């Protein structure tokens, strides 16, 4: 009897399992993943004059605003890093988190047309969102590197290539993992209870304020710093800047906390998404 069960390639039954993450199937749809990323990229600049240059212009526009508001008007102490570099790095990493998360948590609402007509591993869609924003992030990072070079050569910014740079990929990976994981969980919840969608946009803005995006962790008074430290993103953001500029508060314990949270939450969210993915098509 067991033999006959095993010979089936696929099945669809009332019981969905937490464990059946179809890795082989996801691999067989890798071209779809690639073409979805390509599609998103083409779509964002369809019929624009500047085209892909917007990848750089968007964060640059935010940068101008941030510098005006936070250095000229409010005057946050950001240490010795030039404000342009400090804010630009924060904006890039935050946008990567924010845009991936924002794209993922609407997975079901945005793709119900396709989901209700054809089967493929649902996880492909959120993965394509992250991959898309990651590729944009990489392009922006290259631009940031150019800016750092400019500041080092002409503005006397003291840039040292050090081992701290190795922290950079860990920080980016960590931020990516958290945005996927939280995004997947929220996507299932919003598909079911739309109310949550209304709260999420607000919540994400609040989280930005407890993440060292527009300020360095060092400027936060000791007595309220724990609030910011509770946020697993904090260590990653600090490590990101530490890797780039050699300035930031990176301690082992908070870092281990962030990494543990990421490692635990990723499989949990995948299981949750997997378990509920197919049932949601009736609900959305």
């Amino acid at each position: 009897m067991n033999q006959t069960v095993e010979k089936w390639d696929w099945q669809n039954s009332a019981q969905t399992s937490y464990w059946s993450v179809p890795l082989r199937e996801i691999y067989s749809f890798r071209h779809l993943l690639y073409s979805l990323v390509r599609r998103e990229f083409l779509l964002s600049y369809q019929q624009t004059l500047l085209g892909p240059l917007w990848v750089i212009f968007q964060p640059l526009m935010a940068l101008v605003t941030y510098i005006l508001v936070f250095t000229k008007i409010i005057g946050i102490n950001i240490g010795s890093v030039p404000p342009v570099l400090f804010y630009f790095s924060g904006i890039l990493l935050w946008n990567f988190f924010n845009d991936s998360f924002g794209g993922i948590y609407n997975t079901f609402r945005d793709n119900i047309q396709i989901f209700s007509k054809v089967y493929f591993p649902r996880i492909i869609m959120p993965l394509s969102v992250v991959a898309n924003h990651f590729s944009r992030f990489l392009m922006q990072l290259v631009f940031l590197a150019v800016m750092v070079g400019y500041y080092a050569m002409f503005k006397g910014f003291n840039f040292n290539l050090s081992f701290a740079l190795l922290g950079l990929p860990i920080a980016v990976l960590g931020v990516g993992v958290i945005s996927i994981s939280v995004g997947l969980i929220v996507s299932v919840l919003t598909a079911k209870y739309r109310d949550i969608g209304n709260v999420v946009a607000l919540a994400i803005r609040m989280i930005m304020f407890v993440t060292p995006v527009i300020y360095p962790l060092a400027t936060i008074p000791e007595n309220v710093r724990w609030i910011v430290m509770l946020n697993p993103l904090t260590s990653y953001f600090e490590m990101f800047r530490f890797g780039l500029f050699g300035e930031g508060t990176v301690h082992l314990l908070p870092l281990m906390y962030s990494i543990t949270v990421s490692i635990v939450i990723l499989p949990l969210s995948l299981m949750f998404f997997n378990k509920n993915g197919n049932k949601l098509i009736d609900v959305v």
Partner: protein
Amino acid sequence: MPETVIEVSNLSKLYRLGTIGTGSIRQDLNYWWTTSVLKKENPFFNLAESDNSQQSKQFLWALKDISFTVEHGEVLGIIGSNGSGKSTLLKIISRIVSPTKGSVRGKGKVSSLLEVGTGFHKELSGRENIFISGYLLGMNKEEITKKFDEIVAFSGVEDFIDTPVKRYSSGMYVRLAFAVAAHLEPDILIVDEVLAVGDADFQKKCLGKMRQVSQKEGRTILFVSHSMQAIHNLCDKAMWLQKGKMMDLGDVTPIVNRYIMGVQQFKTKQSWERGQGPGNEFLRFENVELIPHLLSDDAPLDIRTPLTVSFEFWNNQDDVYLTTGLHLFTNSGECVFDIPTRPGIYKRGLVKGTCEIPGNFLNDGSYFISLIIVKDTSVRLFYLEECLSFDLEDYRGEIKWYGKWVGAVRPNFPFTMHQELEIPAHHA
């Protein structure tokens, strides 16, 4: 022995009505508690089954206890009226939604065509869309690259392949979308009524392609259609669904015939009490009837069937010169013919008439009949409008062509063609 490639067992799908979308958290927690913690059955089953009509009204069994298997290379046609669960069944077999009870298991790669242009994005060019739609439907990169030119040629949009599809005419859009679908090479193909699009010419091309796929390449196909003609010609087996239940599964012809007889709507007989029928002071109808002479007991009313129209009316005048005209109209109100009886003198009393409409004369479609009684060949005494109606199903026999047959009539009089002169090939 052919291999079983799809096994559907005890498949049921329950939909909650009204509250679809939100459903309260309390209900969800209740569901989670009973199924996951107590390991009991879905608590809503009992509600759906309960006699309390208030509660059972909130639930709908879109499918109920469906079990069957499909063998390799089989073409299974699924028929049923709207809301019978056909699409739900296809969606579950495609793994788009999960069933409430039971399971579907299968072997091999499945592609589902539940709509035309799955994954098409109007802002993208035809080229981009071919790739993304192909990937979504389960093709891999080599397949698409290999067939790209063929797909473009099939769709006939060569010149516009790098133009965003939003600038396409709707016909071009559909052709391109179908071209992608037509070049799929899955092990199992699931098709839902997508043939209802495009012009007649294109439909012909698509059905031809499907037939080629099923017959020459031995692919398993599940096919939902309202076109009995297409089901007849493409499928080896048919399944009839009604209100979520499987009515029958087996050979195509008897099932299709039974289904057609179930859904055909006609007014084939009307009779009235004496003096109560439609009419006026001159005459009053007693009955009208349409008698089909079916070829066999389980045959449907199709274009081959000879029909007899009979009517009776009471004539209230003495020695009157009467004639009756029979008007046959198509569904769209076009008159196909107007046939009069020979005029004659009739006395007070019951008058009976019959008209024989031969088989192999009318085209397929819906028709209705009106009767007109005329005095002295010019004075209209009474017009009995739309007293009978009937549908004629299509029948084409050997002719493997599925487009809509045009014309109000489809007569079968002698029409031949032969080779008059042959020029041997090497002389040409």
